[in-house]
Each structure stands twice: as C-alpha cells, then as structure tokens.
C-alpha cells in the first residue's frame, strides 16, 4: 500500500542523506585509492607520466611486479618487515601488560600515572622521533655521553645508523642488528600505551570474586596471576596482537623519521616510498604496496583460521 510505504521510504531517504557525505568521503579517499593502487601497480608508470593521459590507457602488464620480486633487496626487506612487525607488536603488548599490572589497583596518584603512561602514544610522531634521535645521537646525545662518562661504553654507539653491533654475552660473540633493534624498541615504547589502556580496562572488569575464591582455595599471588588473570586476558591479548600487527606492518612515519630506512631498517612501506619518490617509479611503488597488502591478507587468513581452531 502506498501510504504505508511512505513512512519507511521517508526513513530510508533520511538515512541516505545522513550517511551520504561520510560515504562519499570514505569512498573517494580510501576505497578508490586502493582500487587505483591496484591499477597503478599493473601499469609501467613513472613520475613523468603524471601529467599525461597514458595514465588511463589499458596497457596493463606485470613489469612492476617483476621488478619488485627481481630486486635483490626484496627478501631482506620482507624479512626486516616481518621482524619489525612481530617484534614491535610483541614488545608493545608485553610492556602494555606490565604497565597495566603495575597500575591496576587502588592507590593515590593512579590517575596521574595513567595520564603519564599514555603520552608516548598521544604525542606527535615528529616530536618523539626527533627527541629520541637526539637522545641517541652519537655526537650530541645524552645517552651516549653518559654511558661513555661512566665507563659503560668505550665509545659512543650510533643506535640509529649502524647496522650491526658485536656483543659479547657470556663469552659468546653475538651480532645484533643494532638499528633494527633500536627501531623495534622505539616501537614498543611508542605503542605500549595502546595495549596498556585496553588491558587495564579488561583487568578492571575481572570480578573480584574470582580472586577471592582462588585465595580461599589456596592459590598464591603468582598462581592467581597464571590461573585467573592470564586466561581472562587471553582474548584482549590476541585481539591486541591482531591490531598491532596490522598497524605495525603498515607503519611508515616512525622508521622514516628515525632512520630513513637506512642501516637495515628498510621495511616495505619505506620501499614503496623509495620506488615512487626516490626512483620516480610509481608503478613499482604501487606494486610493493599491493604485495604488502597481500601479505596482510595472508596473515589475517592464518590468524582467523587459528582463532577458529582454538575456539
């Protein structure tokens, strides 16, 4: 009946107008670029082609992907990306967990601590990267100076510009990827607040009765942690890992500003930039971006299969 339809129609029309701007903006600035990227990766495009119309020609080819996979840099970059992503994610979650456990509970100054702990995450990336660069600087940085002054080191260590460092651990000589480690440590520092907040919220929602029951049953504090706290946190932790993995693998700003990708810290996002704006090869840049995206999808696939298997 026409009459009844019009009420529902009115609602649908209103919903359309309410969502249209959002829809358009997101379509135009997120969805279409992704599709565009796919397009660009399949065409031999260089920066010079931007003004021309060859952009829209249907001359697709896989030459970009050939270049990318054929590059001797490819495997090292891929490995670096994975090490950085997994290491950074793990570290930020472990630090976040520790911080949450420390702050959990009632004590004065708790709000202040919580506010303090979120600063690394909230502060602008340019500020924190330049500050840390300064602190770690071999010539002017306070860390090196203090280490040398107190005799911890014989000479300053360029944390962000040296690829390897030889370490002597209990008689065994170990070669540590220095710059990469520094960058991973930075990643942990910068993003632990994210894990911290979520874990803290979850901790606070664990009912006290569970702990009380365990105490009555005879569990010590450490036992209570392993048997009650950790299992309750399992979901948060795995979700956090998922999110941090996605966000870290896509990270560009941090490494770009810290090391510019030098000294063994070249991850795939940096490679994209190098191809597109270093070698002016837009097509190759887009191709790397697509490979990165594909790896991400693969990870998601594995992750969700694993989750389904666990439940």
């Amino acid at each position, binding site marked *: 009946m026409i009459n009844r339809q019009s009420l529902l129609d009115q609602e649908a029309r209103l919903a359309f107008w309410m969502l249209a701007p959002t829809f358009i903006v997101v379509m135009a600035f997120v969805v279409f670029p992704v599709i565009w990227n796919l397009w660009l990766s399949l065409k031999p495009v260089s920066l010079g082609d931007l003004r021309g119309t060859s952009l829209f020609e249907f001359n697709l080819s896989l030459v970009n992907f050939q270049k990318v996979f054929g590059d001797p840099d490819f495997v090292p970059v891929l490995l670096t990306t994975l090490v950085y992503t997994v290491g950074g994610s793990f570290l930020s979650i472990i630090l976040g967990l520790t911080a949450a456990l420390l702050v959990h509970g009632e004590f004065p100054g708790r709000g202040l601590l919580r506010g303090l702990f979120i600063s690394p995450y909230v502060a602008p990336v340019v500020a924190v990267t330049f*500050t840390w660069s300064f602190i770690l600087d071999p010539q002017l940085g306070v860390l090196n100076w203090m280490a040398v002054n107190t005799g911890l080191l014989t000479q300053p260590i360029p944390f962000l510009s040296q690829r390897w460092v030889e370490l002597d651990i209990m008689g065994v000589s170990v070669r540590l990827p220095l710059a990469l480690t520094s960058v991973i440590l930075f990643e942990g520092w910068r993003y632990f607040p994210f894990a911290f907040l979520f874990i803290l919220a979850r901790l606070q929602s664990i009912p006290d009765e569970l702990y009380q029951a365990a105490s009555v049953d005879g569990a010590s504090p450490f036992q209570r942690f392993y048997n009650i706290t950790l299992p309750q946190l399992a979901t948060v932790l795995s979700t956090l890992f998922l999110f941090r993995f996605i966000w870290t693998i896509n990270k560009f700003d941090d490494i770009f500003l810290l090391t510019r990708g030098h000294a063994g810290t070249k991850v795939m996002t940096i490679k994209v930039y190098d191809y597109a704006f270093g070698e002016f090869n837009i097509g190759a*840049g887009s191709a790397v971006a697509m490979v990165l995206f594909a790896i991400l999808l693969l990870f998601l696939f594995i992750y969700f299969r694993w989750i389904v298997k666990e439940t």
Partner: protein
Amino acid sequence: MSREHLETNIIRILRILGIIFFVIIVAFPFYWMIVSSFKSLEEILLRPANLWLDIKKINFRAYYEVLFEHGFARHISNSAYVSIITVALSVTLATVGGYAVTRLRFRGQAFMSYSILVIYMFPAIVLVIPLYVVFSHMGLRDSMHVLILVYLAQTLPVALYMLRSYFQNLPVEIEYAGLIDGCSRMGVIWRIIIPLSAPALASVALYTFMIAWNEFLFAFMFLDTPEKFTLSRGVVQLAGSVHLSKQLVMAASVMVTVPILVLFLFFERHLVRGLTSGAMKG
C-alpha cells in the same frame, strides 16, 4: 613467612621498581625535550650530558627563533585551522551517520555497520600514491582543504563506530518519546541524543583532533609551500635544515606536543568523571 606473604612482598617491591622504570622511560624523553628547548646552542654542543637545567640559564631564544625566524607561528595557525575544521566536520558527520546506522531502517544497514572498520586495514602508504597521482593530475596537491578531506576519510570510520556503540546503549524509548512529542529525527538528534552523548562526542572530538594535529605522512606528501605547512611538516623541514641546533628542533617539538598532551590530560579526567556520574537511570 608463608608463601603468600613472601610472594606479596616480592610483588610489592617489583611493583615499585616497575613503576619507577616506566615513569623514567616514559617521562624522560619529554623531560629532555623540554629542558633542551631552553638551552643555548653552546650548552647543546659543549655539555650534552647535562641533565639539569640551571634556572638562571633558561633561554627562550630557541622559541623566539623557531616562531619568528622559521615561520612556526604560521605553522601553528595552519595546524589549528586544519585540526579544528576536521574535528567539527568529523563530529557532525559521525553523529548523524552513527545515528542513521543505529536507529534508521534502510537497506544495507547491517552492511554499513560492520564494513566500516575494514577500512582500517589499508596502509596509509597504499593510499598515498594514488592520491598523490590524482591530486597532481587535478592540480589539487598543495591544499590544506584537501588535506582536511583526507583526514576526514581517516577519522570518520572510527568516529562513526564509536558513536554507534554509544548510541546503541541509549534507551530507544527516550527517542520514541521525543518523536511522539513532536520532534523530527534531526530534532531528536539535536535535542536528545547530543545532550546525552557528551562523553562520547568529547572522545570523538579528542581522537579526531589527535589524528589531525599529529599527522605527518599526508602533510609531508601533499603540502609543498612552506606557508601552508602544518606543524608536523614544519618540524621535519626545520630538522632537515639545522643539524647542530638541536635546541631549535626541541623547541619546535615542544610546540607541537604541548597542546595535544594538555588536551588529553585535561579531558581524561573529565571523561572519566562524565562517564561515571549519574548518566541515565529512568
């Protein structure tokens, strides 16, 4: 000493040590940033390991230079402009959009509510190149307004999602009462939903501001003329041009950091209070 006793004491000690550790690693960089910004160039070069700040030697020179000789006064206003407009648009669109997705019946409603977050899986770098290409082609590259649109696209999905969750928890009967009393849907949003969603709206505003203010990549890629630089872009420019005058870079960093940190610390207290104080019973 019983096991419980022993473990509790160990925990207490570990806890104190742990908190000290975290406080140091979190606070020190910021401390250093601020302290260095007040030093003179000689201090930076000659006494890099000086942890303390001599009250008598506090030097505002770095700030002066950065603001007036390196154009940061302009950068600050640019960042403020871009961020505030992004927040205003983002909150408005996310509010009506979030309401539509929660309460209105239309085809594709379920799809929209769940697909929103999928957007976040795409790395920014995947977006940068095509956008760079398109903008160059259309001559739109060096524009703060285009940057605002890009930031909107980044923040709207999460903003919409956050508000949607919040709206779902508002009792629908209050809206029904409004509709029966004579409000249109927009009237319900304006007079009922918004007053009752203050904490959520504040969160969205804060989150959006943080993204827009702190953002580096798109500002770096899309802005060409220094007059249009936002603060993030400006700091990178500065760091690239001075190599030894770290105090300038630190002063610039302080200028970018302080507003957002202050906002967050201030609102965090407010937010917590707003969420716990008598919300909506009956």
